[in-house]
């Protein structure tokens, strides 16, 4: 993985500190051109990996990337699935079964599985595979060397103790997509223990790592210890601690930690992208 990864929160009105900024971003990135223009700024700043959720609008961005093969020949996408709000809103409205009916391709409760429900219930992993395929469709023909499970799903499964499902995800990504599976989490040390318990070694884990101890469940001391002593390919996100830490201090802290392979950040202006990249390059030395 490259040292710097560019994230997509700013494009989809995801802002952890302000609903107002959220709406401003939705206005700024109304058009796909605005997103592509900003992605191009990131590429010009030397970033070639875009880590993004499987939001409907990413499909359009993928179309643009596919239609400019020369321009984007070194460009990689790390998909993060699923776009959870799509499902969360659907579950509120339709219930769990209704949501599966709506989003799993084909008529899952009918012809696809003979015997219907009973069999479907027994083959949860198959449902997961169908959902992964549905989410991955938009990336066809694009280089996606790492594919992530979003934190709300990773952490839900972690809390429920559904280790085999986490493992099932791992195995399916390797087998079907010839890509590396990654996990986003807010509980990195606990997830690492759990993944190791089912034989997943040196996993790619993206988690909040910042000098503000923000969303580092178990505490930053435990995170630092884990990075120092364990085998994990860590990606640091939320390095600014949701805006709580000045940028110099934030980047200096993350760059000083051992074993952080990549730093993920999002920014919506050319200036902020260039500034963050130059800070990371400075503190890397």
């Amino acid at each position, binding site marked *: 993985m490259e040292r710097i990864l560019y994230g997509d929160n700013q494009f989809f009105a995801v802002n*952890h500190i302000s609903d107002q900024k959220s709406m401003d971003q939705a206005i700024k990135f109304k058009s796909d051109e605005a997103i592509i223009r900003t992605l191009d700024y990131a590429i010009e700043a030397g970033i070639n990996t875009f880590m993004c959720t499987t939001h409907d609008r990413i499909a359009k961005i993928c179309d643009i990337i596919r239609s400019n093969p020369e321009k984007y020949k070194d460009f990689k996408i790390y998909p993060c699935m699923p776009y959870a709000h799509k499902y*969360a809103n659907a579950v509120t409205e339709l219930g*769990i079964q209704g949501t599966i009916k709506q989003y799993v391709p084909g008529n899952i409760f009918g012809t696809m599985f003979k015997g219907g429900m009973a069999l479907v*219930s027994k083959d*949860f992993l198959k449902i997961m595979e169908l959902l992964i395929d549905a989410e991955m469709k938009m990336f066809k023909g694009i280089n996606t060397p790492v594919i992530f499970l979003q934190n709300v799903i990773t*952490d*839900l499964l972690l*809390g429920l103790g559904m280790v085999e499902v986490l493992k099932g995800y791992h195995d399916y990504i390797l087998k079907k997509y010839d890509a590396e599976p990654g996990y986003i989490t807010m509980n990195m040390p606990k997830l690492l223990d759990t993944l190791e318990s089912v034989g997943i070694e040196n996993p790619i884990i993206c988690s909040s790592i910042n000098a503000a*101890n923000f969303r580092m469940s178990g505490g930053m001391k435990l995170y630092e210890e884990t990075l120092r002593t364990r085998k994990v390919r860590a990606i640091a996100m939320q390095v600014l601690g949701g805006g709580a830490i000045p940028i110099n201090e934030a980047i200096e802290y993350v760059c000083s930690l051992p074993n952080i392979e990549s730093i993920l950040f999002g920014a919506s202006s050319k200036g902020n992208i260039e500034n963050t990249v130059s800070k990371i390059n400075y503190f890397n030395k």
Partner: protein
Amino acid sequence: MIKVGLIGAGKMGLSHLSILGAHPNVEVVGVCDTSKIVLSALEKYSKFHCYTDFLIMLEKEKPEAVFVATPTKFHFEFVKELLSRNIHVFVEKPFCLTEEQGLELTSIATEKTLVNQVGYHNKFVGTFREVKKLVKNGSIGDITHFMGEAYGPVVTKKKEGTWRSNPAEGGGCLMDYASHVIDLINDILAPVTASKGSIMKSIYSKMVDDAVYSLLELSDKTTGVLSVNWSDETYRKMSTSITINGTKGKIISDAHELKVFFKEEDCPEGYSKGWNVKYVTDLTDQVNFYLRGEEYSAQVDYFIDAVAGKVPNNINNFQSAWLTDRAISIIKNKK
């Protein structure tokens, strides 16, 4: 270890279950649901004991505390049964379908000194906690007006729905969505005691309201406005906010950002004259296990601590949720 059971493994139930599953002081002894698909997934991939009949679960597993996350219409019957067996109860919001039911459960729980809590998670959000502190300290003076709002994209098309689209089962924007805002107003300011007029609008739903607007009066005679709409696609997810005007200043807060304006130099520590902005990141304590917002973990931790006798059972207890149920019927009766 506290032995905990769960009834209702839908969206909120699974969220509670995951947080409970990761809790160091909790042993999840049983999960009860009627959905075959959810139960088989849990049976196959988790270690939880699964049941389709909650009475059998109670008999076999003898939980000390139970989380109830079923559709609202079942709350009264289930919670009453749990209390009769001396089991501590955490129940999802809204509390009950009628005021009478809520009152009865509140008095049983109080009489038996059982820990009782309802899932109004906003009270565990750092910004809203700070708003309450500022208001209760009199920092912004006498309250002259308030505006409680929530908007989000739950129902954005005409469609047949589930129990949430049935008014008799606790569906609709007022019960399901606006209840969060009403509960915040009750807690931060004072309980709603009257409505001077309400509008309940169906935008896409056939049987229930998708938006509710009401002029409210509180027990201390403060007045203000409620404005809630769950068919607003301009929001990515639910956005709840409260604006409070006072004689010495003004507060505007959502779950992320708190903005406070003080007219004079005389203001609380950490604030100064003019605008002050604080973020939830500065006002939030770390949780042991994070799933979908610190507040969801914090409310579960608080309940478990209350069962263990470590904290008083005074945030989100049945009494406060009953006041919210009462406000819901006041608003409904004024449409």
